[in-house]
């Protein structure tokens, strides 16, 4: 009987490996394809043909999507575990091992390969098409002749400008327009007309993941101790899974998981913002008093991450034990 349970538990634990690999692969493929579509649409100019496949975007997309998938891997694996729960302690141990492998091996290998393989984008920058009304600031601009781009025409050029806020008699005029400013305004899209129909991916999401990536690269290049400091972020993310033992309804587990994961990511990002400036300054003094912490990159952040990880694990273990006892009493 115990042997059967152990075999079942082991089987469930071992199944986590292909499941995790599959989750990473599928997420990465979907992410890269979506990135390529976004990249191609962002490069679309009114009047020109949309490029559906772009090998450069596909290759570039891998290096953009993979770190996001790695950061969210804990969340994805936790969702899988909630869906296929049970199996005793072994799947939990396997979950922890997979988390350690992701942050200890896969992430550093990815950074190394990124440094080696990633190339600078060499995409041809398309020029704006003539004959369309485009918004530029508070005005509407009609590009009257030829295709022009910020690169071809870095200086001012003539265009018909409609100023909706001017007195009606002065609303339409020929003015010097800075095409480079127009290009800046439509960024990351090449054409503001296209940008107006697709919500730009919120800057804070892009900036957030870019900041995590920068920190990861910095930590890896600065040495193992710094990488260990950075791994405390991964530890906090993976330990949120423990909270899913708190509720008996898996839908609520999912909510707890996603909310707390968002909380951990937000804190690790906001820690470097002005909101936490005072906290960082006051905590820096404590950090220097404890000698073993001075070797770490951001000792306070590491301490907070580890502290919260321990809390999550403690809550999870307590909830699991309580539920186990309850089930025993019920005879389940």
């Amino acid at each position, binding site marked *: 009987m115990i042997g059967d349970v152990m075999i079942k538990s082991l089987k469930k634990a071992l199944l986590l490996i292909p499941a995790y690999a599959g989750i990473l692969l599928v997420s990465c493929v979907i992410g890269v394809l*979506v990135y390529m*579509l*976004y990249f191609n*649409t962002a490069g*679309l100019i*009114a*009047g020109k*043909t*949309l*490029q*559906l496949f772009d090998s450069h975007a596909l290759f570039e997309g891998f290096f953009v999507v993979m770190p996001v998938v790695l950061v969210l891997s804990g969340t994805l694996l936790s969702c899988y575990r*909630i*869906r296929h729960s049970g199996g005793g302690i072994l799947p939990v141990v396997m979950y922890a091992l997979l988390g350690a492998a992701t942050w200890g091996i896969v992430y550093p290998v990815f950074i190394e390969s990124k440094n080696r393989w990633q190339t600078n984008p060499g995409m041809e920058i398309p020029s704006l098409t*003539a*004959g*369309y*009304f485009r918004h530029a600031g508070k005005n*509407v601009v*009609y590009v*009257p*002749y*030829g295709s022009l781009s910020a690169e071809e025409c870095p200086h001012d050029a*003539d265009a*018909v400008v*409609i100023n*909706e806020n001017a007195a*009606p*008699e002065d*609303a*339409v*005029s*020929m003015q010097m327009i800075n095409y480079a400013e127009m290009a800046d305004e439509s960024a990351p899209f090449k054409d503001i*007309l*296209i940008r*107006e*129909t*697709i*919500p730009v*991916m919120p800057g804070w999401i892009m900036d957030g993941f870019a900041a995590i990536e920068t920190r990861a690269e910095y930590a890896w290049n600065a040495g193992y101790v710094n990488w260990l400091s950075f791994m405390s972020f991964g530890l906090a993310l993976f330990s949120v899974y423990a909270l899913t033992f708190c*509720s*008996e*309804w*898996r*839908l*609520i587990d*999912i*909510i*707890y998981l*996603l*909310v707390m994961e968002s909380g951990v990511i937000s804190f690790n990002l906001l820690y470097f913002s002005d909101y936490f400036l005072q906290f960082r300054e006051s905590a820096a003094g404590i950090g220097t008093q404890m000698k073993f912490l001075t070797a770490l990159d951001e000792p306070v952040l590491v301490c907070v991450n580890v502290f919260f990880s321990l809390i999550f694990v403690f809550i999870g273990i307590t909830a699991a034990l309580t539920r186990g006892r309850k089930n025993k009493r019920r005879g389940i």
Partner: protein
Amino acid sequence: MKRVLQILFGYILFCFCVCLAAGFFTGALPELLEKSVRMYRLYAGLRLFCRILPAVAVTGFIIGSAVSFGRSPEGSVMRFSPAMFERYRHVIVMGLVCSFVLTCAAEIGTPFLGSKQQQLEQLPKLVREYVRIGTNAYASGDSGSAYQYAQLAVKIDPKSGEALQLAAKAESAVKSFRKNQKSAILPEISRGVSEEGYTVSELRQRAEAAYAKGNWFDAHYYAETGISVASPKDTNVELLKQTAAAAWNKLSLAETPAETEEERVYKRKLDGYKLLMDGDNLKAYYVFRTLSMQSHALSIDPDVVRYLGLAGARLAAESFFIDETFNMQEFETAGNVYFTIRRADGSTDIVYIKGITSMKGTDGMVQYLRGLSVFSLDKNGAYARSMYVQYAKLLEVPVSDFDDGTRIALGIDGRTEYVPYVLLRSVDRDTDGIVNKPLYCYADAGEEDEKGQLVLPIPYDDFELLAEASKGAELMSIPALFHFAGKAVQYGYSEEVFGQVMLNRILYPLFILVIIVCSASFAWNYRIGEKLMFKTVWTAAFPLFSVLAYIVFEALLWLYKLFNYVFLGAAGRQYALLVGCGVYIAILIIASIVFLARNSADAA
């Protein structure tokens, strides 16, 4: 299903109240009139509700379904069980209802509330604009207009000190002006006088009858009209010429110095008639208008009534009255309309209209254009000329009114049935000399060609589409958007943009249905345990779930819009809708199979 509905509507109601409260108590307000603040906040709350409604509905549906499936999971031991088909039926019904409600919220609710808020935001600006125009009118001595504008401003904002002050000043000026004016009974101008209504032989008969009665004006008029419409081979022409000559001789007898009042009036009528015959309809109109206002007897004089009506009707084809445009701004149906007209010679006209007011006229729709600018570029894109007029009147005229030569010269396509005909000159109804003329500027001083009318060589229906497009593709009606998407490029708009927005809006119900069916599978997988007690504390997590649902929904919407560009890129505008429909139906089928394949093994 009952349980799902209870939870869904309960949760939607809760969120509705929260949104209204949020609308009333939070958010910075733009500049508003004091009386508008409450309504503005109400609209803000409702708009917030419409915005989050998809996330709220999905949350309510998932929680409701998770509870409903969890409490009665029986009959689903095998995949594709009858019990699952029964549940699927309910899911589809709920999906269709949600789809309908969410589409209504997106298509009607949000645009309606947005425009209402925009209207309230515009009111302070409108008051300032009326006061500004009124003040200018008062300064230039037009106290009547100043009073009218001040009254409008006071109507919108009764507490506006500036408006009240202007109204008081202008009112006293108007009163003192009225005291000095003689009252005159204005006859009703007989409308519909039309020389085109008669055939040549009828015109000859009328001319002869008028001659026999000694009515020389009518005799000459009918005879001349008959000559102008008759073909050279018409046998009536000779007789008409004779009648015209005889009548003119009689009329000319009066060209002696007028001594009596009767002779002076006759002389004035003759002057007016000559002007009318020479094609100076505006001057003719003022001659007969002055005569008509001179006395009651003259106001009902058959010649005066007839030729005043005729001059007025002819004038209506080349000018309009300034008072027609009074108070129009308040009723504008479109604003900031711009488009290009590309000519065959490579030159381009950029048309910009600050505001459009549509009115039902006697001969169909009439549109008054405020702040009309036509900015012309030559084939090299260089400035050629520009025209600006404060107000213009646009009429729908049949292309058949133009001969082939004119039609081709104007650049009107042979298949076009009606074109917009724009009157650029407006005149005062009573006083000669008060004229609002278009202001022309030229790049080359030698090239002066100032016209009082303008024919836009585009179909009239397209003009109406352009007026609607000014609101933005998101706010156009779907049929208009469907028609306009294919024509967008020729008017300076992007086909891709309008095509994509068209797909976004037409496929939206299908997109929602797919989400609801996928949510049903999710709800089944994460359903509540059959015997698990529902804890009240869990309800605290539902708003958090809505926040997550909102983020996921926005991400999916983003993907949906991105994919619609892909459909356009892959299949072109004509087939994109078909391809899009096919793809979403395929996803719906897959999602349905996934749901139907759920069984009890996917247990809580």
